[in-house]
């Protein structure tokens, strides 16, 4: 497969996943903002969402940190490279640059998403019915993954698509946890009270994992359990451990398919082992934020190593 095509597939699925995760972060901010204010009433949910999505630096410092303005920036702003509309624009541009590598169903899923998103009525929906808009975005991600899952050949292209999905998802789950633990509640004294619990369950909701969590842990909403579910539990579809497992498997498939191993294979195994061999107690005692930061750096390095191993930048 052409290196440029592999590169395009990898980023195409990253953009779709990113759009969906942006919606999930907003869902979290939206729900947290529904909670009664704590402490001095200084509401920072939307600032946290900006921060967690890596979009704070680009946000106009004079603009209000209210839902309407922040959501508009995160969804429709063309100057924000991570805005949902840009994610879909980039994803579709990538798809268009390699129409032969994706199926008609995948193309239609992306094309329809962008066509709908460009409609003026979507601005009203996002403004007046944010939860409904968020559901719409999540649905587009599902449609694309469903189309991919049911139509594409299980060849190397499939592996690059899946690698993009899980690299991006891991990054986003780490950000989601980080915004909760680091930005929202820097004062450890508040950990464990009612507001804190509510916020933790909100993290689960944003990860579409609340019901799954019930099945696994019943009603034990301790931060410990929730963090475990999203970091170390291999059965949780958005956990770091699950993402790392998938990344390792798809890299293995590529190694078998091509009969070539690269540095990236070792790096992936190392990242995966870190997650299978850690315990939540250790992570908390060494600092959740530090752990998540380290993970994001490793994950980013893995993405670069994939690009290098498969000549995304040329030979």
């Amino acid at each position, binding site marked *: *497969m*052409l*290196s*440029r*095509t*592999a590169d395009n597939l990898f980023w195409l699925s990253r953009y779709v996943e990113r759009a969906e995760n942006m919606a999930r972060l907003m869902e979290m901010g939206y729900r947290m903002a529904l909670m009664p204010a704590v402490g001095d009433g200084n509401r920072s949910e939307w600032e946290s969402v900006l921060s967690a999505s890596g979009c704070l630096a680009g946000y106009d410092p004079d603009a209000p940190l209210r839902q309407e303005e922040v959501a508009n920036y995160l969804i429709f702003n063309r100057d924000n490279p991570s805005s949902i509309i840009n994610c879909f624009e980039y994803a579709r*541009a990538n798809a*268009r*640059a*390699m*129409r*032969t590598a994706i199926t*008609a169903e995948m*193309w*239609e899923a992306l*094309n*329809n998403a962008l*066509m709908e998103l460009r409609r003026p009525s979507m601005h009203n929906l996002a403004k007046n019915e944010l939860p409904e808009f968020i559901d719409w975005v999540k649905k587009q991600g599902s449609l694309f993954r469903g189309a991919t899952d049911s139509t594409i050949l299980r060849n*190397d292209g499939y592996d*690059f698509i899946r690698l993009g999905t899980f690299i991006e998802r891991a990054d986003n789950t780490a950000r989601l946890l980080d915004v909760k633990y680091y930005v929202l509640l820097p004062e450890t004294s508040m950990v464990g009270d009612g507001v804190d619990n509510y916020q933790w369950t909100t993290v689960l909701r944003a990860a579409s994992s609340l019901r799954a969590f019930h099945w696994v842990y019943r009603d034990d909403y301790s931060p410990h359990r929730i963090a475990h579910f999203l970091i170390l539990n291999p059965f949780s579809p958005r956990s770091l451990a699950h993402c790392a497992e998938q990344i390792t498997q798809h890299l293995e498939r*590529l190694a078998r398919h*091509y009969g*070539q191993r690269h540095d990236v294979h070792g790096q992936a195994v190392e990242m995966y082992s870190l997650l299978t061999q850690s315990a939540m107690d250790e992570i908390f005692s060494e600092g959740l934020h530090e752990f998540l930061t380290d993970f994001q750096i490793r994950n980013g390095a893995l993405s670069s190593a994939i690009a290098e191993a*498969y*000549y995304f930048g*040329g*030979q």
Partner: protein
Amino acid sequence: MFNEMTMDDQVREPYRALVDWMEANGPEVLEQKRLEAETLFRKIGITFAVYGEGGDPERLIPFDLIPRIFTASEWRKLDRGVKQRARALNTFLYDVYHNAEIIKAGIIPADLVFKNDAFEPAVIGIDPPRKVYSHIVGVDIVRTGPEDFYVLEDNCRTPSGVSYMLENREIMMRMFPELFKNLRIEPVESYPDMLLKTLKSIAPPKCDREPNIVVLTPGAMNSAYYEHSFLADQMGVELVEGQDLFVSDDRVYMRTTRGPARVDVIYRRIDDAYIDPLCFRPDSVLGVPGLMNVYRSGGVAICSAPGAGVADDKAVYTYVPDMIRFYLGQEPILNNVPTWKCGKPDDLKYVLEHLGELVVKEVHGSGGYGMLVGPASTREEQAAYAERIKADPGDFIAQPTLALSACPTFVESGIAPRHVDFRPFCLVGDDIRLAPGGLTRVAMREGSLVVNSSQGGGVKDTWIMSD
């Protein structure tokens, strides 16, 4: 004016079944089908971008549901005529890059060929595989009467539009399954296979295995990008950009996830000027540095071969009937449109005196830009154009305004006749192949003769009825 569907108030025979269907179903059903078809096109993403215009970069090319239909015997004549032309044009190209017999024989002026911008000194003396330069010849044909067909121009480089021929048919078969069931319409779907066979047959001398074929595109911003990706997909070959290819040890490779993979045949959709910055335009980022060296040494085949453009120059066009007589010893089956060459003093005088009746074109122009349609122009436009001609007469040719045939077409006011032309795509390699069909273009504005998609023209499916 000849109407493709009716003659002497009678429906012409090939259109009989279609007209019956339309009458039985009524305009509402047709309108419904039209909307369905548009949605389908948008969904598939078949679009056509126009250079230098604002607006939607992925504009849909207007598709008209009413097909243009040829009888089997009409097609037999077109088929023979087009193949004859494709053969003569390729013989001409080999000749002008080798012994130039046609020039020595005094049939074509030397300056017209050797001083032509499209003449490529870099390929003089090179033998392309099977001595073929133009592997895909798109011949633009117009009709003025039941038996009167004229060739308007030849496209020997990389004629576009064949994806519309194929996609239009797909859409029509989805819209009108009962018509396809009951009528015997020649299928066109074998075109990609024929193209692949043609490309395989021109593998370069150094290729010692099943040739690796690629389609080279300038990229997703190109107006014909959809067609490039469509053809690559239909043939099951890689669609590459210049950045994907590189030259090493006298061979061409593409960058893949496994490392370099050798490329043997390049179907390029990039102009000569851009394919190799070391040989042609140094500022090109679309091409492959060193490609021409590999080509010269027989390491890669390029379709169409560099230099093929000299055969579709509008001034050279006027000599195609002479080429057919000279090389093939035959009379042309399809006529040229009578043409005045402004480079000749007598012709220039005539053209300037009759601007109001003629169509004047730039010799090197394409896409319908920069032409003067006499009857549709104002006196001021004619006067301004006359100045341009006088400044450089050799750059212009003129033709009579032909009464192009019209085909019933969906327009805002209902169904009305609109002028059409026709472009079949002839393939030349180990054999000369022609799929039974082509692209019918239609001028959507009333009275307009300009069918180019860059000028608001639309397309129709073309049906060849079998005997």
